[in-house]
């Protein structure tokens, strides 16, 4: 089984690659905001675009596209592996 050694924040993910959300390293309010948008640990997520000059990432999960600032993306811990896409 893959353990969290290979996990890293979404910020470092390669563009276009589907990854599994392991957990959120965030304040409860922020975790809740992500959850409200429909993102949960276990879900598939991928970065589709990046805005230049330290701008946000465009992230796709469960059929929607959401712009996430880099500070937000850095709290989403992902790894390679089986994931759920709804």
């Amino acid at each position: 089984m893959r353990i969290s050694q290979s996990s890293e924040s979404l910020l470092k993910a390669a563009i276009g690659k589907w990854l599994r959300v392991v957990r959120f390293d965030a304040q409860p309010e922020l975790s809740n905001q992500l959850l409200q948008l429909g993102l949960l640990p276990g879900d598939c997520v991928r970065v589709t675009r990046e805005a230049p000059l330290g701008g946000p990432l465009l992230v796709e999960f469960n059929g929607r596209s959401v712009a996430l600032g880099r500070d937000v993306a850095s709290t989403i811990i992902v790894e390679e592996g089986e994931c759920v896409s709804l």
Partner: protein
Amino acid sequence: MRFALIGQPNCGKSTLFNQVAGYKAETGNFSGTTVTFTESKVRVLGEVVELVDLPGTYTLAGMNPAEREALAYLTARQVDVIINVVDASHLIQGLNLTLELMELNIPLVVALNMMDDAARLGMKINGLQLQQMLGVPTLPIVANKGRGIKPLFTTAMETARSRQPPERQRYNQDIEDAISATMASIDGQFAPLHPEMVAIKLLEGTPQLIEQVEKKLPGLLPHVQATQKAIEMAHGQQVGFVFNSERRNQAALIVHTVLHQGERYLTWRDRIDDFLLHPLLGYVGLVVIMLIFFQGVYGFGRLVEPPLLAILDGLTAFVITLVGTGTLVSQIVTGLLQGITGGVAIVLPYLLPFLIGMGILEDIGYLPRIAFLMDALMHKLGLHGKAIVPFILGYGCNVPAVMSTRILEEKRDRYLAAALATLVPCAARLAVVFGLVAFYLGPALALLIYLFNLFVIAVTGKLLSRLLPLDSPGLILEMPVYRLPTLRTVVQKAWFRVREFIVEAWPVLIVGSIVLSLLAYFNLASYFDILGRPITWALGLPQQVGVPLIFGILRKELSLIMLGQALGSTNFASVLTPVQMITFSVFVVFYIPCLATLSVLRRELGTKAMFSIAGITIVIAFIAALIARIIGVIALPLIGI
């Protein structure tokens, strides 16, 4: 009877509302267009029903004031049925809220909207099965085409009459036990609210309810906190997250049963972002789109304004020959006419094309893309990309701009965004810049004033964010799919906003114009001029400019009309030097927001914030105009003006 429309952001609630009630609620293809509730009376099955459109929210335990509005409304007013609008193409997130609404013990109907989008994404949804699993009437609609609306409202009425609340879904046993225990302690203290709903929301940690409990049942709080701790220990997660993820898992289970995912076809909607969000081309696109937009407005205004003014001036001259000059009556009539024609001369040439263009950009869904592209830059101003919405709306009118700061979570962000948005030249100030600088000195200089404005906003943002450091987590903003705007909504939306101007601003404009005529008649203007003299002197403006500046606070578009009156000529080239025109325009662009904006600032942020923002703008306006004057004196001769 009262029906409440509720749903997630950008699911089409307001579109549905407008279909039923006529265009009364602002719509747009981005999250957070509706920031407050709108009510309207409609007729359903022969009965008059109060229909209310609530701001979109992902959950009732929302973070920002616009989201909180929904729960506040549902707990404060008697609602007979909730019409839950669900975006079928994002079914799981939509049902997440549906499951939460089922806990409120209020009759509920689900409207599955955007079935066409879902179909395009290859989704087949079994509506009947969904209805069975939820135990709630579920009807498909296409709100923007007006399909399925009649059956929806008929069902809503029947459900309201039945007074049959839905049966909520169950949580894990330990949570159910906690709910029962809390319910027992509440025991009808919050009637008419259902104790079970209060128990769930309390345990979730909804701030408004906790405040109410502190007042009504302070003894209950320790119990609630202990129960929350126990749930957190058992689940290893923050309590609100536990409730949310349970609902979300149930929603996912339901969707897995009722949704068949087929092949998804890529369309122009998916490919267009390859260009518009491209790290380089995206910005080229942004500049081109904005140039086309402003060129379109300017071009139209330029085409329409001279013949329009000729007609209006002819009319004025004709009336003056009838009433004569120099008498009190003639003075009032002249003021009246100037107020009326001033309104026409602003609305038709500039406001109308601006609002139509704005409406198209909003409905296509381009605004969130601008937020994405500009987020990095906005961070330099101490805000994140979502705050671009108040800025863009600000170019139309500062009032909706200030209201739209409600989509921001932090109070500090709202203050800063509102303060900066009031510096954005609205359509009324656009009329001054275009009517004075663009008309007499050329469009290039007008554009330069806009760029200078952006620069000043940037510097102000930088300085203010020094005083108020940024600590919000950052941008979280959904990118909607592109939609083709319909002619009907664009026209309705522009008319809705123009009507606001006609009803609210125009009368003030006319009265202000008459008052000014009277001031001139009784020779009182000079007192106001003395009041404004320190500023007009330092900026090298004629003394008579004091009156238009002071009355410009009523409505910014008054400034230009009154300037003409005060100087005794509307051919500004003969009474003002080019430098004076520029200095005046720059000052008008920045100084005190108009009366309407001030009042909305006070409502949104409080009296203190209103005064501090007004004060800041005067200082900025003075400094900026002084700089413009200095640059103008040096640079204008070099370019031959």
